[in-house]
């Protein structure tokens, strides 16, 4: 699966990325990380607030730095 982190590269986005990777590792998932920093692309995907998290192009979480435990069910459902 492709885990996408949407945001302009602020500290919050990096934290979200780390948490998402931790969640994916703990679940033993095969994943790749994509950072989306272009705000046109962010708007196209439908995120109004960053940081946001999408899986395979589908928006899962917007506007907060969720912990690994909160991210796990989002990854599992995909």
């Amino acid at each position, binding site marked *: 699966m492709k885990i996408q982190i949407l945001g302009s590269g*602020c500290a919050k986005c990096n934290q979200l990325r780390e948490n998402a990777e931790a969640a994916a590792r703990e679940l033993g998932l095969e994943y790749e990380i994509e950072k989306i920093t272009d705000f046109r692309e962010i708007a196209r995907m439908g995120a109004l607030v960053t940081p946001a998290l999408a899986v395979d192009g589908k928006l899962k979480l917007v506007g907060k730095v969720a912990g690994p435990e909160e991210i796990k069910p989002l990854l599992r459902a995909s």
Partner: protein
Amino acid sequence: MPSVFTPYEVFARWAVERVFGLDPATRLGSSLEFFFYDVPKVLTLLVAVSFVVGTLQTWLQPEAVRRILGGRRLLFGNIAAAFIGIFTPFCSCSAVPLFIGFLKGGVPLGVTFSYLISAPMVNEVAVALLWGLFGWKIALTYIGFGIALAIAGGVVIGLLRLEKWVEPFVWEVPAGAGEPESMPLRARLREGWRSTREIVGKVWPYIVGGIAAGAFIHGYVPSDLVMRWAGPENPFAVPVAVILGVPLYANIAGVLPITEALAGKGMPLGTVLAFTMAVTALSAPEMIILRNVLRPPLLAVFIGVMTAGIIAVGYLFNFVL
């Protein structure tokens, strides 16, 4: 007169007299009393205000706000946007996706601007600090003027029909639409607490540092110096305060305690309000980010309207009220 804040006064007096063994009438003693009174009080208020706002904002996620404001007409839409802005946090890093998403979601340009002005200006950190340092009347006055400015600024931009100065690509991006999240009350409260920890964790060093600087001014800087530079005798104090406020984004927490000390020595409150508004609403980084979606003339109109409005608020408060 006893008030809810009396315990903080007792604590500060106790700390100065018993822990440090100083007389509060001395310079060092009065500085320390200022510090030990303000730090616990402001931090308590910040936790309380952040928690209330953080919980309420779960009902006002941007998707929900876009739905409420979509297709609203001038004035009514601006009023709604300005009030909603009180309860929604705002990070300048989100300004661009939010701007695009709102416009594509059918929110008129002027209404979008009312929201973009109100959301960062009326924020929990500024309100908690004004409340703790200057009292609830000043905090409410700030909120009131902030809402008025957000409505007026958005209406002016809406009436001028400046859509032509929005970068053309904004209208071409096919914007997706997220769904507003529904969650149980417990989750909302947890969300409120999470955002409180995030905010307090980020700003407490500025608050402590700012209050320490304020405490130094309180004890050591002579009043006539402040009166000469920032007092009513200097007719340019308001515009100068506004210009100084622009580069100080995100440091409102560190700067307001210093203005409290200056106000205690004669700086008028209208100047304080104008300065706070400039710091929160006219930040340089936000302007640079907004340049991505606004062509220079529209950005100039926005900055001009805000600057004029904020200076007017400062003078109005100093000379009329």
